[in-house]
């Protein structure tokens, strides 16, 4: 957090939670981005993501037991795709924290956290369906909203829709 700037209470709580994670994982996580709308940090060493996830869920002073949302994002300029996860500690603490994990845009993979939070199961399937990143260790990684034999990943910024699907013209 930058010195001399006044932050709201919720950002300070997020910062305190981040400090515990940073103390344990050091350089594997990025610096804390203290903004008022969605304070977050990024996981730099993606291989450690499941460990960080378990630590966040189980540590006595963190207890992030509730994953509110997991959104896939296409960072086209950085040649990366990634996920943004919003966590909070439902009924135990007041802190909230967002975590970003990024991987290569073509054929990149992120370790799955579906066994840490059951919610992540379908959210990760959706992120894969829309952006094409693989989630290693996911129990059943397949498309969820698009048909199984759909081509391409629709939410990528450079996505071109296929000409026809089972003989039906697709672009209208």
């Amino acid at each position, binding site marked *: 957090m930058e010195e001399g700037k006044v932050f709201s209470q919720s950002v300070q709580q997020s910062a305190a939670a981040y400090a515990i994670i940073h103390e344990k994982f050091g350089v594997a996580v990025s610096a804390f981005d203290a903004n008022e709308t969605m304070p977050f940090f990024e996981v730099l060493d993606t291989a450690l993501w499941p460990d960080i996830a378990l630590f966040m869920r189980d540590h006595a002073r963190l207890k992030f037991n509730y994953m509110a949302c997991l*959104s896939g994002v*296409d960072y086209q300029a950085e040649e990366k795709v990634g996920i943004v996860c919003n966590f909070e500690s439902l009924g135990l603490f007041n802190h909230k924290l967002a975590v970003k994990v990024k991987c290569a845009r073509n054929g990149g993979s992120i370790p799955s956290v579906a066994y840490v939070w059951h*919610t992540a199961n379908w959210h990760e399937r959706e992120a894969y369906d829309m952006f094409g990143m693989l989630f290693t260790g996911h129990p059943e990684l397949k498309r969820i*909203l698009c048909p199984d034999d759909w081509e391409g990943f629709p939410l990528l910024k450079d996505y071109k829709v296929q000409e026809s699907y089972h003989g039906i013209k697709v672009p209208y």
Partner: protein
Amino acid sequence: MQELDTSGLGSVRVTRKSDNVVVIEKDLATEQMVLAMGPQHPSTHGVLKLECLTDGEVITEAVPYLGYLHRCFEKCCENVDYPAIVPYTDRLDYLAGMNSEFAYALTVEKLLDIEIPRRVEFIRVIVAELNRIASHLVAIGTYGIDLGAFTPFLFCFRDREIILGLLEWASGARMLYNYIWIGGLAYDVPSDFLKRVSEFVTYFRPKAVELCNLLTKNEIFVKRTRGIGIMPADVAINYGWSGPMLRGSGVKWDLRRNDPYSIYPELDFNVAVPDGKVSVIGDCLSRHLVRALEMEESLKIIEQCISKMPTAEGFNPRSAIPKRIRPKAGEVYGRAENPRGELGFYILSDGKSTKPVRCKGRSSCFVNLSAMKDLSKGQLIPDLVAIIGSIDIVLGEVDR
């Protein structure tokens, strides 16, 4: 019916019928059968397909297949301006359009730094709570139909019609309103609107009790739902459940209270959770009860809003709406308590464009439905219908 431990008994199946009757079946070769339920099945409330692996009447696995109503909401959002997304949000959860618009408007306003006129906030809460009652009426009515009770359905739709009439009067549409805009409202409410709303509150209060009694004092209904599809609280949280589903499991969690937005902190209402006297905590009946009790709380909120609301003098519902909506660069996750749970939007803005770089809709039904596999294991096929009905899915929001 409860399966006893048969490991080590070979091809013998022991089933306990009641306390003193136990059926032992010997040399019984069981074969698993695949039973496809939906996407046109009436009790799946839309186009949901469940592929059930059944052993006789018992379901060993039920796998949901979604996407039949996928309309590329998120892709559409990246191609239109921020205000133009509002009509799309109506079409997510089409039974609670006002609540979806409310959640979206709140999220974008977090990035905008604008002050919303107080009267706007009150009108928003009134229409959202009216819509919550309408949505719960559909949930309760169709749940009755799923389990063979036809009368409550007609009662529910009779009363829901009044709400839809009121909302149509305010916005011009029955279900897809486009009423709550970013920073304001499309129109002020008509001059007699509040009077009619308070008339409705007086009319509906006894009806809500009657409706609740019609089902929860109906023995068939209770037998079909009590103790069915039990979800413990910690598993429900791990699954990301929210709304009446989570409260049905006994967790007193309501975003209107626990992560307050708009004017909810000023209002007095209870967070309805089952007390475990009629139902088993976490079962289908608990979830139904939460919805039935919540309607009363919504009536309370509406009454308070009507009495506290500032007058319409010099009020322009569009006064705070920016000419050009271009949020600052950044990202935000905003959410609101919808009739079905937490509806959230993750919005990523680059600060230059009038269109979001990314807009993800976190659907409450999508998350609630993801527990289907665990909920249905070992249940009977008719109980599966009771479980789906208690989740109260709207496929428009599941598939987006």
